[in-house]
């Protein structure tokens, strides 16, 4: 597939002149015009009924009366809502087969704010950027993953058990105790010994709560918040992994930032999955939370799959992506989560 894409690139460039843009040079975001998706209003009357009382209520100075008026308004709104719903249901019954199809329910994912950085599959410039990023050596099959797993200093039993399970999940990984060593001194030694990634599990209050993933030669460092960590014995009907190399599933990493993170996860695993082992590792991104699951699957027949969960289960949330190896003070950040600026809308996601 890589070769095909490369040939497409070269064709485009040979046809185009010096000035032609590679797809388009950039995407403008309309900050001024906020695309306000009006929730479907069935009745025009509904509007009038609701708007009038609202104005009056906030101007009632007496608190008891104000609360009473508010409660009354809410009751009326609910009545209106139920009436409309009954109307719609009756319409459906009447029309029977001719009824218009049910509109899909509005979810936060459906109504996600348009993100400029969503990667289009035919975007040559993004392809060029990705081909030459720090993880490219893995995708060109020049390096195989070798992972070092460690924790913050003096880990508790839960974290050490978690580390053991993690290392069973990632092929070709080794666990080392931190023993108060500086990460900045550990990293050059790792590079010398040929490690490609280093995973540091941060522990707080006797449980793992953070994950730092650093891709080694000069790669980006990603810092995650880790939550909902479940060890193997806490998962019902769980089983132990085998030595086979797992398949990887990456779901919903749509934006440019998501692509980078997805690529980093891919570089943790060996290139060729051993399908005979029937093991699969899933990184599922939903609403900026990344869910890690490790399963063994079996196809019972054409339609049904049986899944048995292996190993640890945890949820990650991206905090920052830093260019270069770990250097939180002097490194350059490619993306930092700024809560007050980025979390202002419930329908905006960054991955």
């Amino acid at each position, binding site marked *: 597939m890589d070769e095909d894409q490369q040939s497409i690139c070269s064709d485009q460039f040979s046809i185009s002149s010096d000035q032609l843009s590679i797809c388009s040079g950039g995407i403008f975001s309309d900050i001024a015009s906020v695309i306000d998706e009006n929730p479907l209003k069935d009745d025009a009357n509904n509007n009038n009924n609701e708007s009038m009382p609202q104005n009056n209520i906030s101007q009632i100075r007496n608190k008891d009366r104000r609360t009473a008026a508010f409660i009354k308004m809410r009751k009326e709104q609910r009545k209106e809502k139920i009436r409309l719903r009954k109307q719609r249901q009756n319409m459906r019954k009447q029309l029977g087969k001719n009824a218009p199809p049910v509109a899909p329910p509005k979810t936060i994912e459906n109504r996600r704010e348009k993100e400029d950085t969503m990667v289009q599959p035919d975007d040559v*410039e993004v392809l060029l950027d990705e081909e030459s990023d720090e993880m490219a050596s893995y995708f060109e099959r020049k390096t195989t993953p070798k992972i070092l797993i460690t924790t913050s200093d003096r880990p508790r039993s839960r974290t050490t058990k978690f580390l053991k399970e993690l290392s069973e999940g990632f092929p070709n990984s080794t666990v080392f105790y931190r023993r108060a060593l500086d990460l900045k001194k550990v990293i050059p030694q790792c590079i010398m010994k040929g490690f490609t990634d280093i995973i540091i599990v941060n522990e707080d209050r006797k449980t793992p709560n953070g994950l730092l993933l650093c891709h080694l030669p000069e790669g980006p460092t990603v810092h995650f918040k880790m939550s909902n960590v479940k060890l193997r014995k806490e998962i019902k009907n769980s089983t132990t992994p085998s030595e086979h190399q797992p398949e990887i599933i990456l779901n919903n990493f749509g934006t440019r930032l998501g692509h980078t993170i997805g690529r980093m996860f891919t570089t943790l695993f060996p290139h060729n999955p051993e399908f005979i082992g029937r093991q699969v590792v899933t990184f599922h991104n939903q609403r900026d939370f990344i869910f890690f699951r490790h399963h063994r699957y079996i196809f019972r027949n054409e339609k049904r799959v049986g899944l048995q969960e292996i190993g640890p289960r945890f949820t990650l949330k991206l905090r920052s992506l830093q260019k270069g190896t770990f250097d939180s003070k002097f490194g350059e950040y490619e993306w930092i989560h700024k809560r007050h600026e980025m979390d202002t809308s419930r329908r905006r996601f960054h991955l």
Partner: protein
Amino acid sequence: MVENSGCGSQNNVWVGSETGLLKSVNLCKKLATNHYDKENYGKEHEIQRICWEYEDQSALYTAHKNGVVRKLETASGGYVDSFQIPEMAGKIAGLARLDSNFITCTSNGDLRLWSDENETLASSKAGDNVLCMDLNSELQQVVTGGKENLVKLWDLNKPEQPIFKAKNVRPDWLEHRVPVWVTGLKFIPNSNKILSITGTHNIRVFDPNSNTRRPVLETSYEEYPLTAVDIVAKNPNQVIVGNTHGDAAMFDLRKIKHVARCYKGFAGSIREIRCHPSLPYFFSCSLDRHLRVHHEQYPKVEHKVYLKSRLTCLLATDAELEVKTDEKELETEKRKKEKDVWDELDDADSSESDSDSDSDLLPSKKKK
């Protein structure tokens, strides 16, 4: 009808990226185009520095990672010429153009004045690890600085020794030597003073004419290395800085300890800030692949453009930012005309109305 020649026809910003593509952005037309040489794009051709040829902004030069300097004409948007920095090694710390010669500085300290025909006219050794350089074209002076490389001011006519070598600040309150890490330098216009920003989050002003070699003004901003600085064109007392954490702020040099204004909206390290030459806006490009336009007075982002590659450097033109200036002018003209009409009407009515109003107000007491 006022014909606005500036808006729409000229690009507002030229941005260089890590993938070797030069992007021109036109905010009026909402157009961003890539300019690149057919064979010469990709990570090895990362654009590290960019500068105008002359003040008229008709051509610009981009310095690439492998030491090639290319000339691009802004009108046509095509690369016309290419040069090679003589004895290139390391990264490019600075690129400038003086009359018809180049001034380049590489990270291993090779500060060189060379002509288009690749003749080195002057060269000096600026030390190791030079990170930044700036040119003062009126005085023909160049300033360089870097990591463990103090700010040095060079005169191009006498390139052997720097005419001013700064001294490191005094040890801090724990008696530790403060490390030297100059990440950005700018000459303050209409004077000889040098503004420098450091990786140890300091903003310093040096005055070569004073008898101290230590900085004359100093302040610190946040806790992360400062990476971008620019001086507001209309008011050289105001300075805008940006750091690796995505914080940008404006300082006034007359009261340097006080952060005059903060700007929001950045997600990644701010690589370069450039102020608009005439309007109160500034452009910033950052590692999170966005170009942002802020108004100097307000913290929120006015325009944001996603440019797909990590951005490294930036040049701002004098072009207008908004299309609406034409329509706004028409509207104000219309309003003026309407006002005139109303004024006339008032004058006409007032002479009549006085008598009418009197009669209306007072019940007619007809004396019989």
